[in-house]
């Protein structure tokens, strides 16, 4: 696991770390896991969960934490709580834990507003810095964002962020626009979301020549912190200092104001991390360790976080209002009813569906009890995942505004700077996390939700977080790398298998490719993949098979149209899925044909126990 962001903050324990209890306070539920050292290696042994209690009648996040831990106590027989206190360190094999750690995204997470001078240069850099630190960016203000000055001021006044990050200008460049923005912020007298009496934390990470003037203008009006410029020169981003400052201020100011967080910080043996920051640590580590290009997603109740590592560049975005409970209705609003309906394998009238979605919104902790309700939620999740990836692609780009060197061979290329870094053909692994993916009753459901939403091209491996513990392991990695790695490998990461998707279209039933699949035991399957088919072959975890495919003339498997490909494919709890539905994926427009197609696909991979 990677090094902690703040090595100096990590606790020094003077006793061995054998039993760990970790929680993640999500917007809907607080999830607790117990990790124990069993015969030299760390394993996740028990888990418990309880509704998060930042809200009335409790208004104290620790109540939910204690409830979730109480569940672990009941299941494990270990005494962890002494009244409202966690017993640390272990007193005997059945009493206490050695450390308690936590992540949190409850109470709406960390909400930030960022400013820059040019929207798609420093504005985007500031946005990336804030997102990478685990924040939700509620607005990006820039000198050229098209809003009139008084509109900008009005906007700053009405939004109540937890923190503001100001950037703008390269070091040594003009200061006027940065100072102007500081004047707007000062005139707006921004107020924090929580706590009427404390000053809003504000980080300045812009042109260093403007530091003095910014201090003069904002020093009295906000809790101002100055750090290195996030864009010292146009060609380079330096996001780490600003990100670290955000983490520090999150703990020092914001967390102190949220209900019960002061108590939670006292209970925890290590600094509390924002959930997305902890998940980001894990995603980055997987990619670096295995030299992969990956896309990770954490789909929660309120937000969907997307992480990507392509050619070593890490990016994270958060779609603040795409989620499966609090924000479920917004998925409907953004995706539109037709896009959700296209994944539902039965007919349902619009009114019923709309009412059901709204009822989930007003009672966000409920779970689907019947199969059709499950199918509706999984249909919605496909759209939430799809929209969040579109959002991610638009922000995970190269630096914009950078002069590009062109050679004679580029003379006909019109590629602008700032192209998206996400290349689905170079993607090696998709990692899914979050309730709907981790807790899907059948793992194939998680696999197909991600495949339908992301439409991977060529050969792509998929995995899920077994029971949703990536946040816990992210924070654990900052205090004990071995424990985090042990649990991650053995208990957290569940490889689902590989999806093989030829690119192109054909008429229904027409041949897309001939294939030969050689299993580890020598068995060989020779067959044909036709347009509109979904085929699934079981292939166990840690098993590999060899797949040779000869695509039809217009069909591409990554090497060019009609070019044959031979690849080792990895197995998993689901296996190898040959996706002959064409790329881009197109569903029949008329309802009976669409239901028939979905039913055929779902039955082919045994997605649900019975079909309508």
């Amino acid at each position, binding site marked *: 696991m990677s090094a902690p962001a703040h090595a100096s903050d990590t606790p020094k324990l003077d006793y061995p770390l054998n039993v760990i209890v970790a929680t993640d306070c999500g917007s809907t539920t607080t999830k607790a896991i117990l990790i124990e050292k069993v015969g030299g290696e760390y394993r996740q042994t028990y888990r418990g969960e*309880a509704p998060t209690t930042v809200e009335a009648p409790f208004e104290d996040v620790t109540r939910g934490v204690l409830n979730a831990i109480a569940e672990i106590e009941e299941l494990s027989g270990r005494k962890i709580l002494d009244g409202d206190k966690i017993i640390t360190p272990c007193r005997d094999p059945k009493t206490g834990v050695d450390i308690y750690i936590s992540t949190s995204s409850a109470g709406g997470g960390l909400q930030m507003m960022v400013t820059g001078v040019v929207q798609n240069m420093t504005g985007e850099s500031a946005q990336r810095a804030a997102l990478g630190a685990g924040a939700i960016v509620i607005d990006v203000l820039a000198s050229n964002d098209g809003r009139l000055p008084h509109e900008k001021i*009005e906007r700053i006044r009405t939004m109540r962020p937890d923190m503001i990050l100001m950037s703008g200008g390269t070091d040594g460049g003009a200061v006027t626009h940065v100072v102007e923005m500081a004047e707007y912020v000062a005139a707006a*007298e921004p107020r924090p979301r929580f706590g009427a009496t404390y000053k809003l934390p504000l980080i300045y990470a812009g042109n260093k020549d403007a530091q003095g003037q910014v201090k003069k203008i904002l020093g009295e009006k906000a809790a101002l912190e100055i750090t290195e410029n996030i864009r010292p020169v146009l060609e380079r981003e330096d996001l780490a200092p600003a990100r670290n400052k955000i983490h520090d201020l999150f703990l020092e100011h914001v967390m102190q104001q949220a209900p019960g967080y002061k108590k939670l910080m006292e209970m925890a043996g290590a600094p509390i991390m924002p959930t997305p920051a902890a998940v980001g640590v894990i995603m980055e580590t997987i990619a670096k360790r295995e030299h992969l290009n990956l896309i990770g997603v954490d789909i929660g109740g309120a937000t969907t976080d997307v992480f990507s590592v392509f050619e070593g560049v890490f990016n994270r975005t958060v779609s603040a209002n795409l989620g499966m409970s*609090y924000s479920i209705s*917004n998925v409907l609003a953004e995706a539109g009813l037709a896009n959700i309906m296209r994944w539902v394998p039965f007919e349902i009238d619009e009114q019923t569906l709309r*009412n059901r979605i709204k009822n989930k919104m*007003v009672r966000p*902790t409920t779970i689907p*009890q*019947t199969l059709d309700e499950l199918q509706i939620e999984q249909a919605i999740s496909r759209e939430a995942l799809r929209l969040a990836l579109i959002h991610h692609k638009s922000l995970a780009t190269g630096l914009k505004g950078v002069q590009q060197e062109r050679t004679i061979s580029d003379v006909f290329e019109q590629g602008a700077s700032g192209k998206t870094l996400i290349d689905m053909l170079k993607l090696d692994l998709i990692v899914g996390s979050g309730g709907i993916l981790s807790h899907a009753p059948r793992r194939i459901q998680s696999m197909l939700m991600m495949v339908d939403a992301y439409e991977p091209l060529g050969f792509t491996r998929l995995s899920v977080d077994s029971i949703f513990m990536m946040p816990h392991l992210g924070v654990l990695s900052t205090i004990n790398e071995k424990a985090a790695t042990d649990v991650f490998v053995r208990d957290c990461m569940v490889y689902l298998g590989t999806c093989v998707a030829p690119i192109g279209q054909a008429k229904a039933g027409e041949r897309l490719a001939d294939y030969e699949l050689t299993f580890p035991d020598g068995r060989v399957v020779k067959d044909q993949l036709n347009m509109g088919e979904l085929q699934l072959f079981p292939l166990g975890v840690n098993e590999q098979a060899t797949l040779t495919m000869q695509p039809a003339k217009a069909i591409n498997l990554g090497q060019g149209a009609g070019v044959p490909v031979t690849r080792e494919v990895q197995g998993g709890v689901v296996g190898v899925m040959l996706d002959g539905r064409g790329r881009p994926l197109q569903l029949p427009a008329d309802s009976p044909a669409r239901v028939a197609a979905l039913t055929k696909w779902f039955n082919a991979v045994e997605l649900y126990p019975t079909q309508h």
Partner: protein
Amino acid sequence: MAHSYTPGLTVTEQTVIRRRRQLPLPGTVLVTVGDRVQSNQPVAKAELPGKVYPLNLANQLGVAPDEIPDYLVKKAGEPVQKDEILAENKPLMKWFKTEIRSPITGVVESLSTVTGQVLLREPPRVLDVLGYVDGTVVDVQPQQGATVEAVCTLIQGIFGIGGETWGTLAMAAQSPDEVLTPAHLTAGMKGKIVVGGSFLPAETLAKAKEVGVAGLVVGGIHDKDLRALLGYDLGVAITGTEQVGFTLILTEGFGTIPMAQKTFKLLSAHAGQKAAISGATQIRAGVIRPEIVIAKPAGALSAGAAAAPQREGIQIGDPVRIIRDPLFGKIGEVSALPSDLQKIPTESDVRVLEVRFPDGQVAVVPRTNIEVIEGS
């Protein structure tokens, strides 16, 4: 395993509530501890700073930012009228004279010699914070606001739109499963809080606007009608600022759902009395549910009743409401709390409980799919 349950909505004949009446920025508190206040009485007021208008004088006059003070007619801190001259140049020839006039009436707030910008601010606007409920002031936070305590009947809804208002409670429906039709609304209901039954169709919404009711309280509504009423699809449940002509509170949810018997009975018992209602709902980051508050007269105060006993999870015998299909809206009593996980039709293994309905039937339901009916 008694910990995973959803705290329910309060529906109770008598409780003590405290509502913080806070100014958005420091101002003056108009009441003192012990004062009796009415819902429509201002308890605090503040002056909201006026809108800010930046004006780049350097650009408009075509001079360097640090030369601006030489051209200013109005200095920082001085009041200015709309169209009054703010700054002007002094050319040799009158022809080249440029005058910059103020776009607003207000004051010159500040001037920057770095950007050449002057900030003008409109006069402040007075903002009153009202008492909202009839009650007694129990706490005053100087410059910030006051806390009003009321002994009252309290009914929380599940979702609402529109802000705080008050009026006389009028029962339009005769039973909790009756649909509220336009015919139920009469001219006499103007300014009143009208209580319906199971459902509020679009035609009745239109009629409610026409009559001018202050508020509507019903079991359910169709999402599509809500969308038509608001003019947009509500994405996230953060409401309270909508202006549709009245405040709307749903007690059960979306669809046709009979109002819980207990809620209906309680509202009926207080028909003709004054109620304060708020549609503000926030289902994230500190839940706020819409509410109907029927304050009791001053003498009814029972000290100490504010401290409601802390619930210790769900117990056998607790009245509960099922809050998810297929039994959505049904009310019963917890009859068993098995501790082992059970497989439900989706194939998920979850914690369940057993609910016995008044007709003796029993159903097994995931624990997360019920809510305890509080305040019984």
